[in-house]
């Protein structure tokens, strides 16, 4: 299989840099009118998505000062750009190139002799190896800290998506966990229902990494709280790495670095050993206390019900 391994230049630094590139290309519009995160935003985003329209930055969510970004991955082209595709390339071809690279990384064929190693392997290894994440101090995502009574999820413009939903729902929560026996962290997108000023219900399916880490933790360290971090507004490559079929031998941070063309910068949480993308807009730090679970929902789902 041919894999294009042309050296990638850095596509964007972080979510903000990506958004300003989109805005210059007419792929992002600012909404200056007041729109309610309760139901109204769903209706606006739904109409724009169905017409193949731009990403939306709601500058005045009703009752909030924090702007809301919606419809970011609303077209195939924006998904491809977020994965580091060249803006001049055909988005479908760019996505297949990424699939081809993943196929090779998932099951590398041994090089067939020296010439093959030189032409095919070295470029791939050169791209992947230097992409391990880099820990930084003074990370942007920790410029401000809300603690104690300041921890109030109602301060965030969290959407209530559909009539009949049980409450506001965090939808793009990049959830970071680590099992007790592993060095490597798991990154997954799980939806989270707000049920109190500092409580969320985490919906992770049993086969997903976060649920597996929690199970292993509960067996190995019964009775101890399980640390969790949720990054909102990480750079797009990291968000997409969490949903892409990447091989177990590669971390999401490495793969994101590969897509973006630069090492992923990570920051240690203030309250745990977990590492979050340093450029995240918002980070929720906390724990799951043993024995605390709750029934979720009901919510409108992607199945249409």
């Amino acid at each position, binding site marked *: 299989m041919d894999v294009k391994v042309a050296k990638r230049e850095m596509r964007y630094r972080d979510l903000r840099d990506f958004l300003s590139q989109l805005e210059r290309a007419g792929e992002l519009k600012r909404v200056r009118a007041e729109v309610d995160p309760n139901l109204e935003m769903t209706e606006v985003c739904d109409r724009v998505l169905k017409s193949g329209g731009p990403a939306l930055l709601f500058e005045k969510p009703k009752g909030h000062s924090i702007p809301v970004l919606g419809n970011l991955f609303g077209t195939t082209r924006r998904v491809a750009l977020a994965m580091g595709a060249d803006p001049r390339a055909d988005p479908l071809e760019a996505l297949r190139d990424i699939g081809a690279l993943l196929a090779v990384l998932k099951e590398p064929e041994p090089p067939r002799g020296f010439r093959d190693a030189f032409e095919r392997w070295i470029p791939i290894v050169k791209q992947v190896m230097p992409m391990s994440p880099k820990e930084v101090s003074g990370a942007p995502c920790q410029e401000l800290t809300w603690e104690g009574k300041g921890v109030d999820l109602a301060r965030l413009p969290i959407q209530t998506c559909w009539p009949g939903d049980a409450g506001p729902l965090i939808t793009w929560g990049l959830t970071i966990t680590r099992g007790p026996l592993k060095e490597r962290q798991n990154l997954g997108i799980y939806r989270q229902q707000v049920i109190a000023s500092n409580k969320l219900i985490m919906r992770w399916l049993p086969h997903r990494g976060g649920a597996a880490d929690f199970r292993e933790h509960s067996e190995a360290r019964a009775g101890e709280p399980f640390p969790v971090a949720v990054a909102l507004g990480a750079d797009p490559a990291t968000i997409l790495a969490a949903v892409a079929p990447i091989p177990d031998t590669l971390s999401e941070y490495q793969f994101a670095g590969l897509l973006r063309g630069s090492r992923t910068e990570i920051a240690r949480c203030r309250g745990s050993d977990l590492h979050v993308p340093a450029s995240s807009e918002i980070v929720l*730090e906390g724990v799951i206390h043993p024995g605390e679970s709750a029934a979720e929902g009901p919510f409108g789902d992607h199945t249409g019900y």
Partner: protein
Amino acid sequence: MFTVDRITLRRDAIYHSTYTGKPPDEPAVLGAALNEVFVPILRKQFPEIEDFYLPPEGCSYRLAVVSMKKQYPGHAKRVMFGIWSVLRQFMYTKFIVVTDDDVDIREWKEVVWALTTRVDAARDILVVENTPIDYLDFASPIAGLGSKMGIDATNKWPAETSRAWGRPIAMQSEVKRRVDLLWKDLGL
């Protein structure tokens, strides 16, 4: 239940959001894009696979249509089990339809044509019970556990059928060329 102890933010933070609803929604667009990423991964594992498609109407993962270059009797079944096993992403795919590579699987009309002309229900439908299912899928009898179906809509080979099998009708290319030349004189 997740207890939040601390929230850290960038100055002038932005909150990133979406919603999920009946397709097309943002996850459906993302699913369609990831579909293109899946194709080379599947073809690496099963070079006989020609194309792979998860229709957004099927919630982006619950139904898959695959076209393949069939090489031996029973080959379509091997491809079904392969897809169910090869990536975690297809663990909850309830239906897999397999066609030959002459079918454009992204055109539902062509898939229906293959289903209605190349399938005998009793022989070509495979049902596997008690497999993992998304617990939000209320159609499964038990939350988290349900059945899956594979439909072999490929042409049947001698070991699979004892009957003479039909061949798709196609006009000869020389006739087409001649009509192309005649066309301007036909007044159509």
